[in-house]
């Protein structure tokens, strides 16, 4: 693996398998009464969040703490950033304080790459603009692997606002690397330019795609997209691209439903689907996020090859 985790495109199939295997070992820590190992004792991880994201930040924080690292949470609100400090000055300040890893969430696509140029610390992309969210893709793959023997030929539909979704970009990259067959389903206004070059199939018709899938990954649709005119109304969006009970019944018996959260219940996913005990693995995704992020911090911060 590279020094940093910036893009899912930088991960080979071997890298991904190694992260998932390591995560499976580290998941056992979470099952113990005392959920902590001393692996990263004395290392410092900074969560540098320029966008609000409670779940991702808490997930990274718990992951680092379970490995005994010291954790600093830096959020843009109420910090020097709100006083006009630049990303570069923030980076230099953190570097001077001697952090070992920086987990960054930023509204600008590409920000983690700039950060990695400025600091010696390991940089982990926790979501940049509408570009990538590689740790989300890894935790999604981990969750899929809990239910399926492998990725080769696995049929995965990613449904919703692909255009603005960093989750979709990272998942397409990681899933195709692992040999899965990805289908992107969205209204044409929410598909990126030249999406046919992504190595995924494309469809505008959710009902035609659903019965063939092993995994259906729903994307959050932001309410402001409707106001910007990408689709006429939330009701129409839900009718054409929302996963409701009727569509759930059309899926194969073994197929699972995923969602990166936070969900808009009643828009892209109906409450009965989100809460379906047999089909929904959404709660598993959240739990697995911690194990996968533990594995990443462990591998990137140069832990020994042997898992504790």
């Amino acid at each position, binding site marked *: 693996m590279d020094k940093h985790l910036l893009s899912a495109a930088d991960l080979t199939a071997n890298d991904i398998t190694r992260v998932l295997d390591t995560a499976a070992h580290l998941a056992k820590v979470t099952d113990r009464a005392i959920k902590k190992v001393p692996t990263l004792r004395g290392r410092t991880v900074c969560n540098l969040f320029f966008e609000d994201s409670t779940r991702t930040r808490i997930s990274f924080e718990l992951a680092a703490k379970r490995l005994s690292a010291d954790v600093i949470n830096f959020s843009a609100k109420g910090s020097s950033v709100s006083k006009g400090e630049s990303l570069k000055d923030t980076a230099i300040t953190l570097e001077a304080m001697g952090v070992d890893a920086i987990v960054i969430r930023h509204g600008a*696509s590409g920000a983690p790459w700039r950060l990695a140029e400025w600091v010696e610390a390991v940089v982990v992309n926790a979501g940049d603009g*509408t570009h990538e969210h590689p740790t989300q893709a890894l935790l999604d793959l981990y969750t899929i692997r809990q239910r399926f023997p492998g990725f080769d030929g696995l049929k995965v539909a990613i449904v919703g606002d692909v255009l603005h979704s960093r989750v979709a*970009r990272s998942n397409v990259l990681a899933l195709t690397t692992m040999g899965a067959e990805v289908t992107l389903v969205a209204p044409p206004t929410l598909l990126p330019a030249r999406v046919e070059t992504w190595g995924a199939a494309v469809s505008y018709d959710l009902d035609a795609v659903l019965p063939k899938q092993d995994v259906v990954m729903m994307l959050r649709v932001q309410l402001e997209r409707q106001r910007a005119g990408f689709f006429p109304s939330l009701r129409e969006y839900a009718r054409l691209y929302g996963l409701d009970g009727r569509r759930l019944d059309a899926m194969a018996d073994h197929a699972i439903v995923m969602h990166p959260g936070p969900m808009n219940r009643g828009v892209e996913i109906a409450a009965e689907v989100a809460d379906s005990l047999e089909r929904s693995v959404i709660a598993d995704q959240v739990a697995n996020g911690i194990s996968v992020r533990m594995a990443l911090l462990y591998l990137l911060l140069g832990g020994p090859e042997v898992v504790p």
Partner: protein
Amino acid sequence: MKLLLKGGRLVDPASRTDTTADVLVDDGRVAEVGPGLDAGGAEVVNCDGLVVCPGLVDLHVHLREPGREDAETIETGSRAAALGGYTAVCPMPNTDPVADNAGVVEMVAARGREVGLVDVFPVGAVTLGQRGSELAELGAMARSAAAVDCFSDDGRPIREARLLRFALEYARAFDAVIADHAEDASLTDGAQMHEGEVSAMLGLAGWPAAAEEMVVARDLLLAELTGGRLHLCHVSTGGAVELVRAAHFRGRPPPLHPDRRGRQLLRPGVQGQPAPAGEGRHRGGPPRAGRRHP
């Protein structure tokens, strides 16, 4: 005072000249052109291996004076132009105050003459404050000491077709040119690079070629309607060139200048090979399109 430019490659597109010849300059004027001219008492400049050509004219510069003298002045811009082989520059009106009246254009022209390195021909604003709502006093600027013969709202496209129509018509009275920045802002809101495969993968907001081409098409139709003189600023897409070519065949070829930044700004990231994300150091508007269109 006489000057003999000896042995240079003489290039002059207007007279379809591209040959090796000497040029004799007498008191600031070309007196004689031909091979093996006699130096007489002239100072001889050896131009072996050099190009000798008419002075270049830059139709689109920003001298920033008045208002942003910290960035550029008429003097520093004139120096840069002269060093690059330009003998005339046309500074855009986006100064502070905007060059939308005779006072500002006269000041710019006068300061250009005072510096005396190149001809400075100020471009006047088409609309008051470049706001795109009402015509500036084109006549006053045309008849001023600056004798403005080109008007433009610079980076701000003239959104309202009716206003551009009136500008093209009105400027005919002074035989002046209206230069438009072809961009439909509703298609480029927040755009960071040319829209295509690379922008989509990088998650960057795209600037589609159509944003330029639809305005080029509109402007060409209005030029034909009004018989006015239209100039298209920094044309950057193949489709826009095709539209201009089609207009040419319809009998009214408008002049345009291609985007001069040209190939030096073609980074791997915009040629179809993804550059590392965050590589944002070489940007401009309009953005560089891919080699193949679209």
